[in-house]
């Protein structure tokens, strides 16, 4: 966990006021502990990503929530897909075979 000031210092490419704005915009999640915002490691990684988007990729601030939203949807789908994959893998061999054939047949018709 890092405080807002610690994270702003570690990230270097973002100012504390901007971070505060990102939290209020919902770009990054933070927990309010007493009067201090606390950021998890995951939130920190997300802050770095937003910095990459803004600085390295010249994405403007209007487009960032759109990208984050699509990205969150992508990761949610991947987690669901992973759960599904694990569930299929837990089945006996013959059922896995059937699922695989069904998926392959379906994929060909897409």
């Amino acid at each position, binding site marked *: 966990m890092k405080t807002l000031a610690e994270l702003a210092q570690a990230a270097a490419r973002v100012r504390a006021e901007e971070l505060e704005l990102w939290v209020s915009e919902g770009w990054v999640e933070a927990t309010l502990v007493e009067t201090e915002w606390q950021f998890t490691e*995951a939130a920190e990684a*997300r802050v770095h990503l937003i910095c990459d988007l803004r600085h390295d990729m010249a994405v403007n601030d209007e487009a960032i929530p759109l990208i984050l939203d699509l990205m969150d949807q992508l990761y949610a789908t991947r987690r669901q897909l992973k759960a599904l994959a694990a569930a299929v893998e837990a089945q006996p061999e013959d059922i896995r075979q059937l699922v695989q054939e069904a998926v392959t047949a379906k994929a060909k018709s897409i």
Partner: protein
Amino acid sequence: MPTNDPYAVLGVDRKASQDEIRKAYRSLSKKFHPDLNPGKKDAEDRFKEVGAAYGLLSDPEKRARFDRGEIDAAGQERPSQRTFYRQYADGAPGGGPQGGGPGGAGHAQAEGFASQEDLEDFLGGMFGGGGGPFRGGPGAGAGGAGGARFRARGPDMSYSLRIDFIDAVKGATKRITLPDDSALDVRIPPGTADRQTLRLKGKGGGGFGGGEPGDAFVEVHVQPHAFFTRKDENIHLELPVTLKEAVLGAKVRTPTVDGPVMLAVPKGANTGDTLRLKGKGVPAKGDRPGEERRGDQYVTLKVVLPDAPDAALEDFCRDWQPAEDDPRRHMGVGQKAGGRTEGAA
């Protein structure tokens, strides 16, 4: 080596302007940013490579030195310890931080299946290799590696399990409910110690494409018992006995992990005396294969007076003239009267 040439990495001409270099970098970092490419294993390496190339070529001084052959591209690579967001968001243990996902539940935590390779490989295997239909549409599968089915051993899983003292000594079978509501039966062998890790072969995550499953590792936490304690292979117990039982000797019922047994308290037994119940301790593997040993139970006696005042005992003590009655003589305090009486409330 093309990867060592920053110009080749960015796909720009050696005479490219700073503007062209920046444009190439922007476009490539969009393409390879690992967080925007959770399914591409090599995205992180490519992204770092692109970043390193840009770091070199965006600095006119470094670029000039590289062009003159004074520095090489590899020397410029920034050592990056950075953790990308996809490592948290992609269903790692604990679930997604934003939007929440089915993460590890309760005390059970999946260690496997967190790496994205598993999912990609699984899907690759499922769709017959070659990137699958999502990328190339019908027929694209033909470009795959001859339809070879991917096989991989399943991930290992770690769990922790709390068990009773007696179950740890005597052995038991316990059921763990996994995050996906399936159950795992764990055989606790007799003599299991606290913090011991049991390995259940093949009970971890399923393998891919017919690969063998991983193992489950269960760390056992033994709960303390109300009156037994354990020291290696032996069990210790403090057993209260009455004054009468201690003075006259008696046979008293004593708990053991196998149930109560009769213990002979010798005449004149005292607090602190320790008796041994042979073979009532913890089962242990012998020195030779197949040999089973078992520790002992040590019973330490504790003489206790009746909870309620006993008039008969008081009368007896008043008239009693013991031959030797100073248990404090080794503490250097005499029998003589003197000193203040300090009463404890």
